[in-house]
């Protein structure tokens, strides 16, 4: 009995004993390299990586299979070596080394039985894998444990063989693998997978359905339009767990990158026609943006109409889109629009034109300095600061006579932005004919501009009836003389 027990113990341990007896011809070389890792700098790292490359395919295979299961040993040095090498061969002009590394991986992966180590090796193929690595990854595409890293590696490889491997696997895939494959094929915009993905877009499983809808949106074939539109309509273009509305908008947005672009505009208009509520303002904005992205400057009329929309958020978004697409022609159209509007909308259009430095709108800005709305007046003053035009100088110095506190400050700032030697002269002259509060602002401008030659004008303010002005004039004289 004792002999039987001893024999059983021996047999149980025999694989380990036999393994210890298997020769490891590269062990000494590998250990020498591992002792130098992690490398302290790039030079040492490159030197270690060159040493690894000299091990050849078999040596690298041996190194990869030295990884121990968790809790059975410390893999840290090996991880530095293997990951370092994966990154090393991914650099330019190292294709030969890369090919050899893939061959080593093709040997090491089947020999690696520990799941975490296998995942570690598969994930490194995301860095250095190329088309030659596709056969290595194929066996794992339907394995629930390894499909995720394998599919992510194939997405990085992107080659036709990688895509075909995933398309074939999708037929039999279930659960996590199925979802990962659907997502990956969508990400790679693989048209061939569209029929299979369309089937899954009708699934009752919201997770699979969501993955399929977004995959179809990424593939962006017109054949999917009825399905994606129906899914979005079914949820009233609202927000749901399958992301149907977002998928439809992504689809339309991607269609805009194809030629012809008209279907993208049709899809976006479909959304705009059916969505009118404030609750879906963001959906309407997204649809409007697709139209603007496709039509570019030809969308100005659409945007001008949108600027009159009852929803403030939608109006604001339309103006923001207009600002991104503005040119001389559209600026002229917006200038005309501003002339027929008032209040906040007018102020916003002025700001938009000013921020894009549209000199064509200077007459609009000048007239707006006299607008009855303070919001518009402030926008016009700030516009003067933006366009920095001498044409705005005199109107600003007129406007300062009736300006309120906020406008005074804004005018002071605008005057500092106008780039001309004539600013100080005009300011100095005007300063003598404006109310005390405005005089204080103009004194600041002269000080900021170090207008030494305007001392005589400043000195005349010493006779002011306003004590604050006298004090400010004294300070100004001192400041510009320093």
């Amino acid at each position, binding site marked *: 009995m004792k002999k039987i027990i001893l024999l059983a113990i021996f047999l149980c341990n025999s694989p380990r004993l036999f393994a210890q007896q298997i020769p490891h011809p590269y062990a000494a070389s590998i250990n020498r390299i591992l002792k130098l*890792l*992690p*490398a*302290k*700098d*790039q030079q*040492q790292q490159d030197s270690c990586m060159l040493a690894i490359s000299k091990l050849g395919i078999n040596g690298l295979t041996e190194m990869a299979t030295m990884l121990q299961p*968790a*809790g059975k040993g410390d*893999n840290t040095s090996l*991880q530095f070596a293997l*990951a370092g090498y994966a*990154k090393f061969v*991914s*650099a*330019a002009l190292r294709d030969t080394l890369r090919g050899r590394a893939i061959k080593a991986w093709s040997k090491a992966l089947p020999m690696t039985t520990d799941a975490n180590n296998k*995942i*570690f090796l598969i994930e490194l193929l*995301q*860095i250095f894998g190329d088309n030659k690595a596709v056969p290595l990854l194929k066996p794992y595409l339907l394995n629930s444990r390894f499909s*995720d890293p394998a*599919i*992510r590696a194939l*997405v*990085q490889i992107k080659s036709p063989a990688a895509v075909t491997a995933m398309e074939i696997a999708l037929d039999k895939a279930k659960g*996590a693998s199925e*979802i*990962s494959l659907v997502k*990956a094929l969508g990400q790679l915009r693989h048209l061939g997978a569209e029929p299979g993905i369309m089937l899954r877009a009708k699934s009752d*499983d*919201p*997770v699979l359905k*969501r*993955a399929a809808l977004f995959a179809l949106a990424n593939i962006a074939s017109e054949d999917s339009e009825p399905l994606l539109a129906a899914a979005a309509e079914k*949820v009233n273009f*609202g*927000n*749901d*767990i399958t*992301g149907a509305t*977002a998928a439809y*908008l992504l689809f339309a*947005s991607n269609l805009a990158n194809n030629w012809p672009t008209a279907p993208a505009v049709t899809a976006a208009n479909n959304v705009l026609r059916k969505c009118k*509520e*404030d*609750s879906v*303002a963001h*959906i309407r*904005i*997204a649809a409007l*943006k697709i139209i603007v992205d496709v039509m570019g400057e030809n969308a100005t009329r659409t945007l001008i109409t949108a600027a009159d929309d009852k929803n*403030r958020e939608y109006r*604001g*978004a339309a103006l*923001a889109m207009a600002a991104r697409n503005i040119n001389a022609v559209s600026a002229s159209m917006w200038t005309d629009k501003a002339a027929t509007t008032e209040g906040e909308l007018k102020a916003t259009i002025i700001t938009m034109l000013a921020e894009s430095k549209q000199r064509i709108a200077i007459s609009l800005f000048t007239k707006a300095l006299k607008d009855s709305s303070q919001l518009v007046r402030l926008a016009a003053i700030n516009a003067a600061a933006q366009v920095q035009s001498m044409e705005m100088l005199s109107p600003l110095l007129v406007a300062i006579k009736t300006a309120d506190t906020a406008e005074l400050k804004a005018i002071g700032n605008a005057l500092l*932005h106008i780039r001309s030697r004539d600013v100080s002269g005009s300011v100095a002259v005007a300063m003598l004919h404006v109310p005390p509060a405005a005089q204080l602002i103009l004194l600041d401008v002269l000080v*900021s*501009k*170090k207008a030494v030659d305007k001392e005589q004008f400043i000195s005349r303010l010493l006779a002011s009836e306003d004590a604050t002005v006298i004090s400010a004039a004294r300070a100004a004289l001192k400041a510009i003389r*320093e």
Partner: protein
Amino acid sequence: MVSGIQFNHNMGQNKNQSRRTFLRNGIGAVATFTIVPRHVLGRGYLAPSDQLTKGVIGTGAMGRVHFNYAGTRVVAICDVDKGHLQQAQDILGGGVKAFSDYRELLQLPEVDIVHIATPPHWHGTIAIDAARSGKDIWCEKPMTHTIGEGKRVKEAVQQYGRMFRLNTWFRFEDNFYGMNTPVKPIKKLVSAGLLGWPLTITLSPHTGFDWKQHWVGKTNLPPVSIPVELDYDRWLGPAPYKPYHPHRVHQHFRGYWDYDGGGLGDMGQHYLDPVQYILGKDDTSPVAVEVDAPQQHPDAVGTWRRITYTYKDGCRIVLDANGRDEQAAFIEGPSGKLFPGFRSDIPDLHKKLAAYPDPPPQITDFLVSVKERKLFALNEENGYRSCMLVNMGKIALQLGRSLEFDPEKQRFLYDDGANNLIDPPARAYWA
């Protein structure tokens, strides 16, 4: 995971949408304060109907900091850790809806703003879904974990006309760390051209910036069973599956490449965003990034010594983690230098600077941005660019080599490995 959840698309929509529309149409302020005068309720008081409502996703330490932001009211919270969620509910009291799946929170029509306070590997996914759900977004830094996610967040926010605020603020308020001065005068100085061009900006302990090199990961972590209160699969979300260990989650996640990027990930956008603003690089990116660092482990973030970004015009940003250059100025240009405390070798700097205009004003109150639909100072566009600095640095560190970059195409030159890290595919099945 979510197949059992029932979603009611119209739940409370009309009632709450009216309140949102009312607020955003900007006419509520006059009409709603007739019962109790505002001054009776104290300085800064806003009636609940005038406050913006928030859904906070991620209720750990960072999420809780934002429960009491003036002018907002938390109406919903979400966390994948039941313990965090319960603690948050205890703080906020009754009436706050609690979820473990952020997509349920996004269904709520009564939520105006979504505050994303999760670890960075979730920022992009949640921000995109929030934009698609019509929510305005307040996102913790770094904006996204990868460059690709950042691009998609930017596109989604702009497509759906959302307001986006990245939660770092040094480009418009507070002293800029050890510089002991706000960014505004620095921006003014640079715009005035008094330092010349191109400029080199150094962020090192000597110029007032600590790169928190203690944010490193651990290797050889033994398998540990997952605590019952944590939905680890959902915590991982789009990140690759790795066996659970407490050092990977919650307050330690910054030490792992799958979720963040150590001190660079943690502090990078705090430090680099104002620098990008100062240099006027909000619409571009560097053409090169050089790294000097020990080799990085593929999972655990390690330390680094120096990262240098170079722009096409010759401007450089140097991240000097160890303060190797003790004499470095914060900004150095051909015509002068600027040191912490606004010290400079330019004589009469303050007087000279007075002649120049201040930088253009910015919208620095996110509630104003939301109510008036105006771009926030640090938004999806410039935030994307400053986050790209962080992510470019992370990629160069991970690969252990210097890289060249095309700021227009936003791709690395001649480097497949680097380009594969721009937008690595996410794990699909967490959904």
